[in-house]
């Protein structure tokens, strides 16, 4: 089943931050990771991804530098900042609360039906 992009859209910033928290990554690598980790059920449009990455950079949650990939070609890598890490932790907490609330709400609805 393909995931509706509207549901996941609001959480993409946190997903991107999470991926960059793990290790420094470049734009297309982030898109590929999202696609692979969702078992090819969700692919982020590059326009959306690049807009979000640039916004995160403007908010100083991530920074960029030009690095070298394994085969020697240059890539613009994104790295999490201290501010970004704190923001990510905060969003993770928000997500945990939302997840609990949604499970409770949906489980209750299921029981009534």
């Amino acid at each position, binding site marked *: 089943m393909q995931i509706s*992009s*509207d549901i996941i*859209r*609001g959480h*993409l910033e946190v997903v991107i931050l999470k991926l960059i928290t793990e290790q420094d990554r*470049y*734009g*297309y*690598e982030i*898109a*590929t990771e999202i696609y692979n980790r969702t078992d090819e059920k969700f*692919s982020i*449009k*590059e*326009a*959306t991804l*690049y*807009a*979000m990455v*640039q*916004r995160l950079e*403007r908010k100083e949650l991530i920074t960029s530098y030009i690095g070298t990939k394994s*085969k020697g*070609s240059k*890539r*613009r890598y994104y790295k999490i900042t201290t501010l970004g890490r704190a923001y990510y932790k905060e969003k993770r907490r928000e997500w945990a609360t939302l997840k609990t609330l949604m499970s409770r709400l949906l489980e209750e609805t299921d029981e009534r039906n």
Partner: protein
Amino acid sequence: MKEIEQFVNRLFSSKTQSKEDKETVPILIEMLEEKVEDLKEEGMNESDAIDKTIAEFGEIDDYYHPHMDKEKRRHKRQKTIEHYKNDLLFSALSTAIIIAIIGFVNLYYFPQYGPWFIVPALGILFWPLSLLYKLLNKKGENK
């Protein structure tokens, strides 16, 4: 990779560019070129890699409103059309009133100079006409 540069420049040419947009264009080109390079490393030929990159980019609205879904963006445009309609109505009524006043002054007080009010009347008609043009353009964009 001229195709990528042309594609990004064309995307942004339809929008009024802010300072941020001007900084964005070269970075966006760089990011898309990185993707082409990656695809080539995976074994795709350059022309196919460029086509795939451009096809998968999405729409410029995804870039400007990454949090907004298509339905909301459409609604936003509809609201703009409503605004244009109101503007057109306002300009048409105002134009009619102004022309009536000039016409009255002309014919009542200065009939000896002929119907000169036609000249300013034609000029002011361009106000609603330009708004009508904008409205039709906006409607065309939505189709």
